């Protein structure tokens, strides 16, 4: 059976060129990057090269502001817990949004138990945070604002530059989870005006289990993982050299192909959207019509439930998702769609299609052809549908 992968926001396949770049660092160049001998020097150089490349890609002026981690979750935890700890005496209030990834939300919930106060900003029907609410929520006690650049479920892109201007000059650290944005849209930390930024290798054709956090010089943050002196004492642990090299290569590829790819992706995404809207009644777009990732299409199919759509798609070889990979095991409707005030039943019937660079027009047309009978069959079974 033909297999079509439309779940790239969950994870992406490692690019062959990335794998090739990584391979030597498992057996020949296996040295510990902290060792002084030749084995160590070779891997140290490789790590530094990756750091320089990623820093340049993100507009980071000094590569030492980039710290490697084990992925997006660690970077998010590091940012939130590290700032909360460092600024505890200044204040104990954190502002974030209701639609953040669980790596942020659950870390904030943990801090609430520790006595911190957290404001979860509302979003509008397109998933944009309310800037007035954000401005009003900042107090003398606020130490951290953490807002995602692009949402993993709906792809909506937040006005990060405007938020940065609001936060600036108040002694508040501004963190941005850019995990879903890297490789899909341009990300420049200077232009965005952020203090901290998270990224993760496996979302843009790099390997899993490696990520990074940008920490602007002068940002107060407490070390999160203690141990050796790696990463200038900011993140202990022997470097994941193959992973770091792979993520560096993935960035090199993104630098080269992102502009063309994102145009191609947008066209495919909109082709899928049109195809669905033209053949299936009672569908809605979840997410912002324009301010959205080029690869992300979240569609609500009225009167049917998401998992039964996914199972049917899976039987046809098509992989999509009902929300974030982490929450699809839970029963509650997506917290993102709920925050957007999508009706509970409609939220249950929402499917995320997230495209990647290997998807073709033929694949999209195949999906467009497969969907209508699936939805029709499920609707005939649904007590909510009178068609």
């Amino acid at each position, binding site marked *: 059976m033909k297999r079509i992968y439309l779940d790239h926001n969950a994870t992406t396949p490692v690019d062959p060129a990335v794998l090739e770049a990584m391979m030597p660092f498992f057996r020949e160049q296996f040295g510990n990057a902290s060792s002084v001998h030749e084995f160590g020097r070779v891997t140290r150089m490789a790590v530094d090269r990756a750091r320089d490349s990623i820093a340049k890609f993100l507009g980071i002026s000094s590569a030492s502001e980039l710290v490697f981690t084990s992925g997006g979750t660690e970077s998010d935890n590091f940012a939130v817990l590290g700032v909360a700890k460092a600024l505890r005496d200044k204040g104990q209030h954190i502002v974030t949004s209701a639609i953040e990834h669980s790596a942020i939300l659950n870390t904030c919930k943990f801090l609430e138990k520790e006595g911190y106060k957290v404001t979860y900003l509302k979003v509008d029907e397109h998933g944009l945070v309310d800037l007035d609410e954000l401005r009003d929520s900042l107090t003398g006690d606020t130490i951290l604002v953490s807002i995602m650049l692009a949402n993993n479920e709906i792809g909506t892109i937040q006005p990060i530059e405007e938020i940065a201007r609001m936060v600036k000059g108040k002694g508040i650290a501004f963190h941005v989870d850019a995990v879903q944005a890297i490789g899909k849209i341009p990300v420049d930390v200077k232009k965005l005006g952020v203090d901290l930024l998270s990224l993760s290798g496996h979302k843009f054709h790099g390997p899993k289990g490696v990520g990074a956090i940008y920490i602007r010089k002068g940002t107060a943050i407490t070390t999160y993982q203690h141990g050796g002196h790696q990463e200038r004492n900011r993140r202990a642990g022997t470097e994941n050299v193959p992973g770091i090299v792979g993520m560096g290569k993935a960035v090199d590829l993104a630098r080269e192909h992102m502009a063309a790819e994102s145009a191609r992706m947008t066209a495919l995404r909109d082709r899928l959207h049109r195809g669905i809207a033209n053949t299936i009644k009672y569908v809605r777009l979840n997410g912002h019509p324009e301010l959205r990732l080029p690869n992300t299409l979240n569609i609500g199919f009225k*009167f*049917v*439930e998401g*998992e*039964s759509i*996914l*199972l049917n798609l*899976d*039987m046809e070889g098509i992989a999509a998702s009902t929300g974030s990979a982490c929450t699809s*095991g*839970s*029963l*509650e*409707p997506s917290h993102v769609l709920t925050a957007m005030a999508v009706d*509970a*039943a409609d939220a*249950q019937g929402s499917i995320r299609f997230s495209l990647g660079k290997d998807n073709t027009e033929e694949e999209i047309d195949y999906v467009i052809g497969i969907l209508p009978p699936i939805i029709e069959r499920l609707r*005939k*079974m*649904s*007590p*909510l549908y009178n068609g």
Partner: protein
Amino acid sequence: MEGTYSEKVMAHFRNPHNVGEIPDASGVGKVGNPQCGDIMNLYIKVENNVITDAKFKTFGCGAAIATSSMITDLVRGKTLEEAVKISNRTVIEALDGLPPIKRHCSVLAEDALKLAIEDYRKKQGV
């Protein structure tokens, strides 16, 4: 993904039995699942104290559709006394099991059946 469900569940999911409504049903059970928001309507036809027909309409996950299909199969030909004894455990066993997180889906089917029988008895004035 199919691996999370048994062969039996997938078979019923792929080809659910007894989908639809019974216009002159003897009893109807309509339930919503508070945990997940899913909905099931179960229709039964009763003649001489025996369930002669059962149909369903379900808005729900794969497990909800499979349990709907299975329970409508199980009740056909049963007396009301036999039918009320059908529990969600009976349905889960008949389906060769459900993943733990999906157990509650089968409760939906049991509740709908109980309500349909209650509805019938109420209409009979018992």
